[in-house]
C-alpha cells in the first residue's frame, strides 16, 4: 500500500515512520510534482494549520487534493489536519479543504499549559494513547457522522465515508493501532463515492 504524507510542516515524520513500520510504502508531498505519484491514502499530520493551509494554497496543492478527497481518496487527519478538513472553523472566516461536514474550533482547550494526555477508547480499541496538544474541538458534526472516540462528552474522532479525523495525536507513541485501523477499515474497504 502506498501512503502519501502531507509534509509541508508539522509532525509528518512521526506519521511516516508509523506507516512504514506497518509495512506501507510512503512518500512526502511538499510540492505539486509530488502529486504525480499514485497514492492509496493521504495523511494530514499535526502542526500549525495556518502554516499548512497557507502553503497548500501557495504551492498550488489545495484544489487537486480537495478534488481527490472529494472523489473518495482515504484520508487520515490528526489535529491540524482535522482543521484542514473541516467545512467551517469557528472564529476564523477561512476554511481549507472543507470536505468534512463539521464545524471545528481551533485551540479549544487553551494554550500549551492546557495540553493533556489520556488513554481512551477508539472505535472499540481500548486504552489508546491520545495526546491533545493545543487541540481543536468538534463543535458540530453532520448527521450520519460515525463517532469513533469521545472524551468528557466531547467528540474527539469521527469518520465520514473515507475521511478519518481526530482532534488528538495517535502518532506520537509506539502504539500503531489507530493507523492500522485506518488501513484495514478505510483504505482496504474503500467506499466508492
Amino acid at each position, binding site marked *: 500500500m502506498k501512503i502519501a504524507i502531507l*509534509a*509541508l*510542516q*508539522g*509532525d*509528518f*515524520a*512521526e506519521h511516516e515512520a508509523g506507516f512504514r513500520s506497518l509495512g506501507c510504502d510512503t512518500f512526502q508531498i*511538499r*510540492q505539486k510534482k509530488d502529486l504525480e505519484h499514485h497514492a492509496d491514502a493521504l495523511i494530514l499530520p*499535526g*502542526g*500549525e494549520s*495556518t*502554516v499548512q493551509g*497557507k*502553503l497548500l494554497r*501557495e*504551492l498550488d496543492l489545495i484544489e487537486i487534493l480537495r478534488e481527490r478527497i472529494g472523489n473518495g481518496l482515504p484520508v487520515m487527519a490528526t*489535529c*491540524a489536519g482535522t482543521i484542514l478538513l473541516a467545512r467551517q472553523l469557528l472564529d*476564523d472566516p477561512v476554511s481549507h479543504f472543507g470536505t468534512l461536514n463539521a464545524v471545528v474550533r*481551533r*485551540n479549544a482547550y*487553551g*494554550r*500549551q*499549559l492546557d*495540553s*493533556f*494526555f489520556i488513554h481512551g477508547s477508539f472505535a472499540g480499541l481500548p486504552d489508546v*494513547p491520545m*495526546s491533545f*496538544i*493545543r487541540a481543536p474541538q468538534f463543535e458540530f458534526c453532520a448527521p450520519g457522522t460515525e463517532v469513533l472516540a469521545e472524551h468528557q462528552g466531547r467528540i474527539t474522532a469521527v469518520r465520514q465515508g473515507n475521511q478519518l479525523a481526530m482532534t488528538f*495525536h495517535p502518532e*506520537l*507513541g509506539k502504539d500503531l493501532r489507530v493507523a492500522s485501523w485506518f488501513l484495514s477499515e478505510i483504505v482496504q474497504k474503500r467506499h466508492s463515492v
Partner: protein
Amino acid sequence: MKNTQYELNCDLAKMLKGGVIMDVTTPEQARIAEDAGACAVMALERIPADIRAAGGVSRMSDPGMIRGIQEAVSIPVMAKCRIGHIAEARILEAIGIDYIDESEVLSPADDVYHINKQAFKIPFVCGARDLGEALRRIAEGAAMIRTKGEPGTGDVVQAVRHMRKMMQEIRRVNSMADDELYEAAKTLQVPFHLLDKVRSTGKLPVVNFAAGGVATPADAALMMMLGAEGVFVGSGIFKSGDPAKRAAAIVKAVTNYQDAGMLAELSTGLGEAMVGINPAEIKVIMEERGI
C-alpha cells in the same frame, strides 16, 4: 508510558517541525509573521540586532507587551527569559506563554546555574553549540534545542558551525561501543542515559532547530540541509527591506529546501537583506553565555 507534562512539551515542539519561528516586537509584526506562515512567534521588546546596538543589560520583556502579542495571533507564542532567572521564567509561565526561551541573547542573570526547568510545567527551549551543551540543557528539562549561532549579526557562520558540530558528534556517538560511551559521557559532561538515547536513535532526544544569523531563504535552506528540523529567524526579517515577502519566502524555503529551482525563485527580488555584521566586528559574544 508517556503521561508527563514534559513529554507533552516535547510533543508540542514536534508540531513546530518544518516550520519557521519569527522574532516579533509588536502585535502588528506578529500578525505579519502569522500571515507569512510562521509556525510560532518569539515576543520580545527588541530584536537581537537592536539589543546589540543598544548595549547595557537586556531583560525579559514587559508582560503587557507579550500579552498583546498573545492576543494578536492564534499560533504559539514564545518569550525569552535571562539564563538562570527563575523569577522571570515563573512570570512568563504565569501569563500562559506557550514556550520559554532561556536565552543567551539576554544578559545572563546567573553565571553558574541554568534554571531547573524540570520544576516547571511550561516547556523550555535552550541554545546549544554542541552535543554536550544540548544534553546538559535537556537534562535540566529543556523540551527543545536550537543552535546558538551568533544572534543579531545576520551572519550564519556560527549557526552552521554549531549545527555541524552537533551532527558530527551525534554521528560519532552513534557508532560507539558501550565502554566508549561511558567515557564519552564523562568527556562531554552529560548524563549517560541521554547519551545512550542519542546513540540508539541517531538524533537528539528533543526537536532541534537552527537559530542565530539566518537572514535569507538560502540560509534557512542551508540549515535544513545540515539537519535542522526547523528554523528561528530573529533580526533577519524585520531588519530587512520587505519583511512580509522575506518571511513568506523563508517559510517556503524551509518546506522545499531540497528544490534548488524553487529556492532560486524564492531568493529573487526580496529587496534589501539586513546589513549584518561579521564576528570580527562584534564586541559581545552571546554564544559563550551559559555553556
